């Protein structure tokens, strides 16, 4: 049930509406000041009703039932597929590196350098995985909030079909660094040198 909290207690939506209606009934519309108060209270009552209607309409969009779960499922697939592809790339690189060990210079040097570049580039998978996991968590949080809002209005279909649960890589949601507040390797080195 939708509730409003004051310093003393919680009020249900129905109680709030009753209080407003009661106040409206008691306001004398004879003076300009009272007319203004009456208009404000009417506006407030309309606002509550329209908010309720908007939230009910949200269930028509069915965000929590299909759109968000399917989107998060697709993003999960992106993570698993990039993970799989990266593993294949790594396998191939390790095979090339073994061959490189038997090659003479300069072929050996060229192959090792090329493989090293691929290793470095493969870290993209860790970074994109973290970013996408962060987006998935945000979408699931939205899904949960929508469901809670609908449930508070008594919509029986409000509960999400998928349990957001504990994100698999919840602990990874802080990285990698974004431009702005994040620091570069050089800045980190300077900071560590300062401490030392």
């Amino acid at each position: 049930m939708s509730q409003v909290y004051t310093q003393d207690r919680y009020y249900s939506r129905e109680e709030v509406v009753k209080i407003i209606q009661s106040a409206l009934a008691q306001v004398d519309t004879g003076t300009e000041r009272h007319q203004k108060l009456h208009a404000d209270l009417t506006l407030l009552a309309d606002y509550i009703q329209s908010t309720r209607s908007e939230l009910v309409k949200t269930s028509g969009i069915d965000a929590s039932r299909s759109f968000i779960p399917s989107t998060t499922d697709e993003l999960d697939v992106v993570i698993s597929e990039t993970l799989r592809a990266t593993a294949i790339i790594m396998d191939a690189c390790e095979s090339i590196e073994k061959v490189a060990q038997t090659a003479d210079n300069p072929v050996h040097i060229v192959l090792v350098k090329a493989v090293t570049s691929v290793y470095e580039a493969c870290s993209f998978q860790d970074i994109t995985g973290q970013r996408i996991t962060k987006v998935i968590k945000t979408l699931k949080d939205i899904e949960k909030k929508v469901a809670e809002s609908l449930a508070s209005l008594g919509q029986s279909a409000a509960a999400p079909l998928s349990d957001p649960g504990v994100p698999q890589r919840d602990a990874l949601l802080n990285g990698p660094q974004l431009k702005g507040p994040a620091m570069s390797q050089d800045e980190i080195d300077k900071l560590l040198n300062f401490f030392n």
Partner: protein
Amino acid sequence: MAIDKNINILVVDDYLTMIRIISNLLKQLEFVNIDQALDGKAALEKMSGKSYGLIISDWNMEPMTGLDFLKELRTKGNNTPFIMVTAESKAENIVAARDAGVNNYIVKPFNADTLKTKLSQVLGAF
């Protein structure tokens, strides 16, 4: 001091791809004894039966983070050189890791040269 390439190195990361990348780069630098663990708790278990000359650890892992792993080690009086390899690059993270006793810090994404530089800073010249 010349770097000892026979030391035991423990690479800790919950992404196997990252473990493979770091391990392969270490092998290119002729380190041969490389173990792996998927989080701080698993790393502590590894360390209960073996001594290591270097730990290279991610920060964000479950159930035990790299920072908690580092704190646990230092609390036990274990001073194994510890390099944090992480995307956590905010100043407060660096300070927290430094306060916990980290020896060096590599921010992701990194390249082979950065890893080599950090290894020489912690272990000695190549």
